[in-house]
Structure formats: structure tokens, C-alpha cells
């Protein structure tokens, strides 16, 4: 058993953690309450600012006509698909650039330009190329996320410890052995960081794509809501997005914890 002082210390840590969580929850509850009260007493214009009750009503009505999970499902599918494909493509290209330094040098200015180009401007071209459908949305998300994934992962690969590489070379390791035994595993946490950046960008890309294509999904809900001046729908869409994005983020954290065991 621990000493009394240590037990007290552990207790304090627990209490501190609880206090942080408690304050976090308190803030959101207060915000919602104030928002609702402000709406009830007509301190804010509910036509523009909506209100928690109205949002809840909107969600219930979306649920009862069966479209709630349809839109969420469509967006989630697009996000997860683009994220997985984007991450795989990003890591593959980063690997090629690591393996063929010549290629990396040649492509460097192109990657820089593509990275700083506002990808939204490609929207119209993407729609002409891939049609107004899911394909365009996924392409948009890929354009936005892949470049930065390539750059981040390649950077991490290039920073591998030169002494460890020399050690492997002294054992006569091939390039692919160096990659799979050293470069890839030593960059596990960097790849996870790249994923965290990637998932955020994929969300941006997907919503952007849904704005442009306007067929289904949470982005479409927001777009549609704004066109018919139904701000409740817009707010509902935003809140759904916030929930989905944080769920995805925690999913990555969960996977990270699982894999690093």
C-alpha cells in the first residue's frame, strides 16, 4: 500500500481532474441555458440565432421523416472514405518521395504551390470532371487533405535518425528493410499527428463539396437551410458537424492508444 501522503496526492489528482471535467460541462450547460433564456425573453432574434429548443425540434422532425440518419450517414461515409483513402495515398506518396530523393526535389515546388492554393477554387473543375455527386465531394476532400499529409509525413520520414540508418546499413539492410523496420515504426506518432490534421481537413473538404454539389449530407442541410432562410436547420447542421468531428477525433485517439500498446 502507498503512504498516506501518496494516497492524498492521488486523491488530489483525481479531484482536480473531476473539477476540470465538471467546469467543462458547466460551461456548455450554462451556454445552452443562457441561449434558451435569451431566446425566451426575446433578447435575441430567434429567426437568426435560433434556440436550443428549436434545434431540438428540428432534429426530432428530421428524425421522424427519416432524413436525419440519411444525411449523417452520407457525410460520415464521405468523411471516412476520403480520410482512409487520403491517408493511404498520402503515406504512399511520402514513401515514394523518401525512396526517390530525385523525385522529391523535382516535385518540391509543385507541392508547395498546390499546398498554398485555395483548393476551393478547384471546385467547379472537379464538378465538371467528376459530375455533381459523391465522387466530386470525395475528390474535393482528397485535394484538400492529401497534399498536407504528403508534406507532413515526408518531412517526418526525412528526419529519421541518421545514426540508426547507418547502423542498419552496416548490417547491409536493403532500402525496404530500412523503411519497414525503422522509418515507418519510428514515425508512428508523427503519422498519427498527420491523421489528426488530415481528419480536420477532410471534414472541410466534404462540407465544401456538399455545398457545391447540394444533394445530401449535413453540408447540404446547412446550404438548403440558408437558401430557404431556415436558420434552425443551419444551426442544427453546425451542431451535428461539431458532434461528428469530435467523435472522429476521439476515434483517432482511441486507435492511437490501441496501436501503441
Amino acid at each position, binding site marked *: 500500500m502507498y503512504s498516506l501522503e501518496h494516497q492524498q496526492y492521488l486523491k488530489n489528482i483525481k479531484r482536480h481532474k473531476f473539477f476540470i471535467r465538471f467546469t467543462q460541462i458547466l460551461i456548455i450547460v450554462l451556454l445552452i441555458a443562457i441561449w434558451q433564456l435569451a431566446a425566451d425573453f426575446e433578447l435575441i432574434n430567434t429567426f437568426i440565432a435560433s434556440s436550443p429548443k428549436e434545434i431540438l425540434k428540428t432534429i426530432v422532425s428530421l428524425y421522424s421523416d427519416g432524413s436525419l440518419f440519411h444525411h449523417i450517414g452520407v457525410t460520415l461515409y464521405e468523411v471516412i472514405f476520403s480520410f482512409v483513402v487520403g491517408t493511404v495515398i498520402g503515406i504512399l506518396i511520402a514513401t515514394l518521395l523518401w525512396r526517390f530523393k530525385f523525385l522529391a526535389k523535382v516535385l518540391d515546388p509543385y507541392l508547395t504551390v498546390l499546398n498554398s492554393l485555395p483548393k476551393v477554387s478547384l471546385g467547379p473543375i472537379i464538378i465538371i470532371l467528376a459530375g455533381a455527386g459523391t465522387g466530386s465531394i470525395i475528390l474535393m476532400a482528397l485535394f484538400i487533405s492529401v497534399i498536407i499529409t504528403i508534406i507532413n509525413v515526408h518531412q517526418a520520414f526525412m528526419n529519421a*535518425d541518421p*545514426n*540508426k540508418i*547507418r*547502423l*542498419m*546499413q*552496416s*548490417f*547491409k*539492410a536493403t532500402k525496404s*528493410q530500412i523503411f519497414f*523496420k*525503422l522509418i515507418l*515504426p*519510428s514515425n*508512428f506518432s508523427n503519422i498519427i499527428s498527420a491523421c489528426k490534421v488530415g481528419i480536420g481537413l477532410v471534414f472541410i473538404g466534404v462540407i465544401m463539396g456538399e455545398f457545391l454539389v447540394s444533394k445530401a449530407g449535413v453540408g447540404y442541410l446547412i446550404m438548403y437551410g440558408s437558401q430557404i432562410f431556415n436558420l434552425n436547420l443551419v444551426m442544427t447542421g453546425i451542431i451535428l458537424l461539431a458532434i461528428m468531428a469530435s467523435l472522429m477525433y476521439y476515434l483517432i485517439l482511441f486507435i492511437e492508444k490501441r496501436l501503441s500498446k
Partner: protein
Amino acid sequence: MLLSVKDLRKIYHTKQNEILAVDNFSFDLKEGEFVAIVGPSGCGKSTILSILCGLDKASSGTIKTSKNLKFGYMPQGDNLFEWQTIFKNCLLGLEINKQVTPENKAYVKRLLKTYGLEEFENAYPSNLSGGMRQRVSLIRTLATKPDLLFLDEPFSALDYQSRLAVSDDVYKIIKKEKKSAIMVTHDISEAISMADRIIVLSNRPSKIKNIYEIKLTNHSTPINNRKAKEFAQYYDLIWKDIDYHV
């Protein structure tokens, strides 16, 4: 003769200029010998080691080795893979050469056991002290059964106390496994206490300034060797050779 080096010369080319790192470097290594190379910072010690073990190309000069000589190279630092267990780390060279046979595994286990690391087989490097990590690093190199070891400042990451202890351990391991070794170091005392012969290099371009045959009365382990009466004389001689400008 295990290794015979003649007129080694190495020029590094950079965009700004060319750097003559090593010039006129010749020496022979006898079987079972422990040679230390000392010299000022940046004089080309690491360069010599990596040329000798074939990682770098010399600009000119010849290196002759006896047939089928196997090298084991330990670059600066312990270079353990943090994401693998100690045992897995030790198998690295064998895995690369596809030689993970039951016999070789048993050999690695025996080495770990002999050198007091048995209970850490399944631990991760972060749980080991600097000295233990350095021993693991040596065992990883020994696992592929090299005849000749190249050690690049093997103890530079350690604090003074563990440095003494680990250099003692490493010395015993190398002698017990009957390996020859070439070790690069900054530390003159470390060189005198461990080596049979010391090559002192000059500032860049590094040429051989002096070679000392170390003969100590009651030659035994590095820690004890430091007490030999000739120790201070060698120290003075080498110190003057290196001519540090403080």
C-alpha cells in the same frame, strides 16, 4: 594481420568548398588487438571508421582485410529502437540478414544472460539506464558474430560514473568474446585504460601524429589500469600531441 590500411585519404565535397578530412592514414591491426583513435573534435575520426567498415568510400588509398572478416559497427549513441523490446532490438542484425535461427536466438539469450540483462529481455529501452542501453547496443552488434568491432564514441552519452563502469563491462565483453576492436574516443584516459595501441590524430586534415603501444604494469581491466604508474605519462604525452587550444 586482420586489417591493413594504406594511405587513406578522404575529401568531402560541398558546394562551398572541398574538405580534406583524412590524409595519409596508414596502419595495421593485429588479431585480438584493441586500438583506440583519439583526436580533436571534427578531425575525421568518424569518417575513418565509416570508411573502414565500408559505409563510406575513400577518395584514395587501400584497405586490405583478411578473408571473410565480419565487421560490427556501432555508430555514435546507443541507437536502440524504442518501440521494440530489448530482445527484439538485439535480433535486428540477424533479422536483416535473415538469420533468426533457434541457435542464434539462443546465442543472443546467452549474451543477455551473461551480461546481466536477462530479466530485461521483454522490457523496452526506455526502462533501462544509459549504461544498460549501451550494453544492449553492444550485444546487438555481437549477435551477428563479427570478428572486428568499430566503436564510435561508445560512452559519450553517459555520465562519468557509468562511463567508467560501462567501459569496464564493454571491455570485458569484447575480450571474453575474443573480438578485435577499433574505438574512437575524445577521452584520453578512456583510451589509455582500454587500448593496446593508441593512434593520435592531428587537427583536420587528420594525419597520424603518433602511435603509442600501451604497456602498463599489472595490465587488467580499464578501471584498474587507471591506477598503473605509467598512466599519467601516457596521458601527458597524448595531451601534448593533441595540443588543445583552450
